[in-house]
């Protein structure tokens, strides 16, 4: 077995983060679950230790607490065994209608999905470079590829995140920081539970297993599940006069 490394899961309480953490632990990697609800994260960490016999612990992390990011990164560095890798899996998705009725919801979403994400990754960069490189896997979304009437505010935060990650990847590439942006289709999580069933819905376990495999293979952008690559190619190519008439 290769030497143990550690995955820092930002949004460690999310459905996708929990499932990805199980993949990492099953592969013998240590896990740090970072989020806002300590007791819950500790239960998940206990599960990983028990099922897979790997070190796992919970860390308090709030993406909106920008001033706290530096201390958070120091704490993560102290807890990690071996090199640190990062899964960015936090985010909020209030409905478009709610965001329009209460613009402060939209602002909080931007501050979480974009500002918070960019800030914590920026704070992590010196650590990743200093240890001789590492992997960052980030949850982007197909919603960021073309703005749809139903959720273009959320989509905008993800599009901005994609762009940020492109530059971040380019900037840190020669320090062997690899960045994989997952252009995720719908996953059956707490986030999507109240929505009507979406096409090609993936289970968190299936999604996480595919994400784990993809992360071993390299960086760049990847649609997940893979079916979204051709589907989004079509959707991106639709002329406006057709796209505008679709109820998406």
């Amino acid at each position, binding site marked *: 077995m290769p030497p143990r490394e550690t995955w820092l899961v930002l949004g460690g*309480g999310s459905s996708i983060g929990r499932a990805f953490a199980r993949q990492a632990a099953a592969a013998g990697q240590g896990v740090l679950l970072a989020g806002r609800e300590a007791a819950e994260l500790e239960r998940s960490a206990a*599960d990983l230790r*028990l099922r897979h016999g790997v070190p796992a612990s919970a860390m308090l992390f709030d993406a909106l*607490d920008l001033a706290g990011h530096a201390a958070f990164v120091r704490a993560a560095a102290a807890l990690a065994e071996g090199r640190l890798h990062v899964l960015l899996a936090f985010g909020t998705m209030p409905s478009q209608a709610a965001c329009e009725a209460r613009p402060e919801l939209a602002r*909080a979403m931007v501050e979480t999905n974009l500002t918070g994400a960019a800030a914590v990754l920026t704070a992590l960069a010196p650590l990743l470079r200093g240890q001789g490189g590492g992997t960052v896997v980030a949850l982007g979304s197909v919603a960021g590829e073309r703005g749809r009437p139903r959720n273009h505010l959320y989509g905008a935060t993800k599009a901005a995140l994609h762009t940020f990650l492109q530059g971040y990847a380019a900037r840190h590439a020669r320090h062997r920081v690899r960045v994989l942006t997952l252009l995720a289709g719908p996953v059956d999580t707490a986030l999507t539970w*109240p929505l009507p069933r979406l096409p090609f819905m993936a289970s968190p376990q299936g999604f996480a297993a595919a994400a784990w495999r993809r992360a071993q293979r390299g960086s760049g952008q990847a649609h997940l599940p893979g079916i979204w690559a051709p589907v989004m190619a079509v959707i991106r190519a639709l002329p406006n006069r057709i796209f505008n008439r679709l109820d998406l």
Partner: protein
Amino acid sequence: MLVPLALRLVPPALPTPGEAAPAWRKLSLQGWGRLGRAPCQAARPERLRDLRAVVLADVGRNLVPHGAGRSYGDAALNGGGAAVLTTRLDRMLGFDATTGVLVAEPGVSFADIIRTFLPRGWLPPTPPGTAFATLGGAVAHDVHGKNQHLAGCFGHHVEWLDLMLADGSTRRLSPSEDAAAFHATLGGLGLTGVVTALALRLLPVPSNALLVRRQRIAGLDAFLEAFGAARQASWAVGWIDALAGGAALGRGILEVAEPAPQHLPPPPEAQRNLPFDAPGCLLNRFSVRAFNAAYWRRVPAAGDAQPMHYGRFLFPLDGIGQWNRLYGRRGFHQFQCVLPEAEAPRGLRLLLEAVGQAGAASFLAVLKWMGRDGAGLLSFARPGFTLALDIPARAGAGALLRRLERLTLDHGGRVYLAKDSTLSPAGMAAMYPRLAEFQAIRARLDPGGRFSSDMSRRLGLG
């Protein structure tokens, strides 16, 4: 740029973690027998705080917990009400390798435990016939396994459990902490509250395999005798060809098994799904008869013995996902009863004859000897013989099931609610003598009647 943003943090009106209102979705739930759909509002909390919000929510006139949906009838359904799906509460929280006690959340399945602990020499204590069942479901039906005659039921191996009550509070229950509520919750059909965690004593085993001996049995009396001779066997189960009549009535195969000292390579976990509903005519008296006869002949006349992975012996049907679609779109009933030992020879004969006369094509029926009473007030298990068989939902099924209920009652037996979809309120009251006691405890724990299900209302329990 970033710092000024930080100063304008979230306005107080925004939901903070955990305070968000629980998310509900319209869902049509079905029992494993697929007899009908129960449309309801469903929530699927992934953390305790969300579960609490669901229990306290003013959604649906009442609420039922729903695990893996492996009960056949309406125990986990609540048409027109609300359901809380517990499968995402699936974390193992602690294990003591000296005592074998595992603490886990209710959505953990038997398959999860076997995957994690069988390689370390531990087995869940009373595995039911499907590993997909969750621990919460196992509590609510006080389930039994092919080792019931020695090991008793699931509840006998539970040290304590945490129950979330209708008022959102959580109580630890055990034989020494509110024992009445503990015994009401074991076998309590999810009607006392939602189990949020439990401590379960696992069973130590020397390897991941069993040595399984199979023998052909010519008929019912021989079967009962053979079980008598197998009382000390660690595991014992019988398969009956429910279509064999006359002198061959009750013929079948007895399987007894002992822990094997040697490990086997674990079987692949991949499952094949039945991708569509079988046409209703696929299972007819002729095809099922041929299948059952072939199954019988597969075992050599002199019997055989082979080492087998626990999974293959305990969960023979789990290899085919959604095998319940084999019975077609209309679904099927499963009937399971237990008869006291003295009544079994006559009672089982009458039950099998009734099924035979009705020509209700049934795959292999299961026969098993039980040695102990269950752990809860409404537990199914009691010493005697238990018989389980499938009855496709077609014309005449209702009349047959009423007849089987009558025969069960006449012979001092009871019907298993994990399988049931047709038992009458009068039958329930006669078969479960501690029902009034159960209802009194339930009224204390849930005075407002928040927890209720299609089954509880059908059985007149409110």
